[in-house]
């Protein structure tokens, strides 16, 4: 992937302005070690290791359509892991991200159905609702100074309850009605949930969106002022504020970005399954966070990349489906998943330690 090269400069340079690195330390270290010290390299090696492992352990993985399936699974995690990673680099995280996906899908579906509107109306209102949830998280965090754990745990519980109660109140059931025969559905489905063929293999459009968003996020992080602000507020928000970084704006907009991601994945789920169950999404937030952490973002903020979580999400999809392709005893499913992921994180950690040790 060419984005690795794109991601190469500047990631490990501290974003804080001030003296340039002229003490000579970085210059003395060999190129290979400097490369290894980047946040995405450890996870890249981990992902390659997992891929190679399953290419041997599970013969069906070698098939193109299997790889498309693995990439599809990775993309639904990956699209959310990207804004979650940016937020984490900005020093916060969001526990409400999993149920927010379902909130968005429920909003779009119920609004269109109950008012018998073109589904695009629902889609747009759902976007506004998702951005508003993000803005609320960010605003409450900035205004109160509470840790993001508490703020987003609160939103997580609120959304979980609202998803269920409102759906029940509006539809009389706990799942939404089928909207697949409504105006605008097929258009929206093309955008959010279509399939195209490459060399005889059916690829889901989410894979393309995932890579487009990753490229965009990488560019923003490395080439724009906003990207610098993200690193700055995640590193030390007081010194960031002192040098003129708009901390409040950056934090709130990062939460809204997570809202955007939740909307996009929510729309994918709605337009690929036609109905939404209100109890879904719980637990997914941890998978997004895990993909970002495996991708080299620190839980403490100020460090990470956008390309790392792409490999993090890929690793998740690879392991989860690889176990099935290998035909292993399904009772061990989650244990396998946990072991593989811990292994990947440890490789990641070891690579970084080795690379940064002098």
């Amino acid at each position, binding site marked *: 992937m060419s984005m690795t090269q794109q991601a190469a400069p500047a990631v490990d340079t501290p974003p804080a302005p001030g003296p340039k690195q002229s003490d000579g330390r970085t210059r003395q270290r060999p190129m290979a070690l400097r490369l290894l010290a980047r946040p995405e390299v450890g996870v890249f090696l981990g992902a390659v290791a997992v891929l190679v492992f399953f290419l041997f352990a599970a013969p069906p993985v070698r098939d193109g359509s299997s790889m498309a399936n693995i990439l599809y699974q990775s993309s639904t995690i990956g699209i959310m892991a990207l804004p979650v990673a940016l937020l984490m680099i900005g020093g916060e995280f969001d526990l409400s991200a999993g149920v927010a996906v379902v909130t968005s899908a429920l909003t779009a579906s119920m609004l269109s159905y109950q008012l018998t509107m073109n589904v*695009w109306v629902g889609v747009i209102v759902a976007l506004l609702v998702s951005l508003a949830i993000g803005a609320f998280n960010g605003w409450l965090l900035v205004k109160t100074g509470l840790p993001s754990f508490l703020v987003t745990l609160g939103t997580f519980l609120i959304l979980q309850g609202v998803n269920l109660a409102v759906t029940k109140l509006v539809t009389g059931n706990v799942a939404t009605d089928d909207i697949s025969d409504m105006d605008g559905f097929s258009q929206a489905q093309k955008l959010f949930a279509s399939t195209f063929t490459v060399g005889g293999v059916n690829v889901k459009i989410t894979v393309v969106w995932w890579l487009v968003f990753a490229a965009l996020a990488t560019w923003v992080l490395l080439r724009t002022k906003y990207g610098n602000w993200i690193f700055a507020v995640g590193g030390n928000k007081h010194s960031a504020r002192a040098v003129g970084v708009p901390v409040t704006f950056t934090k709130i907009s990062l939460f809204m970005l997570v809202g955007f991601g939740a909307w996009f994945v929510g729309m994918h789920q709605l337009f690929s399954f036609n109905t939404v169950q209100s109890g879904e999404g719980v637990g997914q937030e941890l998978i997004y966070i895990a993909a970002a952490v495996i991708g080299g973002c620190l839980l403490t903020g100020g460090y990470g990349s956008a390309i790392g979580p792409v490999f993090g999400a890929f690793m998740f999809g690879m392991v989860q489906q690889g176990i099935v392709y290998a035909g292993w005893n399904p009772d061990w499913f989650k244990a396998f998943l946990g072991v593989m992921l811990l292994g990947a994180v440890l490789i990641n950690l070891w690579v970084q330690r080795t690379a940064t040790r002098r």
Partner: protein
Amino acid sequence: MDRSSHPRSRRIAPVVAVAAAAALTLAGCSSSSGGKKSEEGAANASAGKATTPRMTVALVTHQAPGDTFWDTVRKGAEAAAAKDNIKLVYSADPNAGNQANLVQNAIDQKVDGIAVTLAKPDALKGVIGKAEKAGIPVVGLNSGLSDWKKLNLLEFFGQDESVAGEAFGKKLNEVGAKKVLCVMQEQGNVGLTQRCDGVAKTFEGKVDPQNVNGTDMPSVKSTITAKLKQDPSIDYVVTLGAPFALTAVQSVSDAGSKAKVATFDLNKDLIKAIKNDSIQFAVDQQPYLQGYLAVDGLWLYKNNGNYSGGGEQPVLTGPAFVDKSNVDKIGEFAAKGTR
């Protein structure tokens, strides 16, 4: 890119634009097909109303939030309560300890009867004893077929999951299935395991169980696709909940497999799928009936001293098969969310 302009106003501008666009579409853009308008005004089943004295019944289940199945149980219970002049208090928690607390809560409220599911009978043993000591009749429903007598419940309404699984297995023999994938949406759930085991008991071919992450549909879809790729000899996919059956249909087509899909439990989208042949059949334990009979059973006991099943045998509500032959009739009821 101008990096020094005011980020706040830049942020607001698109939001305003989108809001305006939304307002415009709201004003002019309604769907000409589907939607609420096409839904027929279907009333719930209702009978006359009893004139017996008002009583209160607590229904305490192990429902996880947002599950369509339990919604139907609750609707049945509400229909019976409305008919019998009963105030129904519904509460639920998938955690057995919390469910026991909810039963205790009902005892404290001095209700006239308790209907309870016994997904984890041992955890509820103590609190059910307390209810009996307080003179409150308790009936069981849905899960706990093997334990309701040990706990001295009045009566029990439900489906034997193993019996349902066995009936399912026989049906698979009839339709000529050779190798079956049994998709479990919740790892370690006793009832789901009994279903797959029941299928394996009577089915003459091979049954492969497969766990999936039930709270994440894209993941369910990918996992079933992966399994069908890994083992192309699978010719029937069996799911243990209606929404997963509909997803499995997509997986089958993604995997380019010829496997057919059949499922436990029903919902209204599933009816459509049975009509257009994308799903072969569903076994229905009639959750509406479980909720209805449990509440009605308590009313009969209080007002006429009746025991359903004579207090000796459970009252079975399933397995009832829904396939192309009877789907039209049942479809009418499923559209209302009561089947």
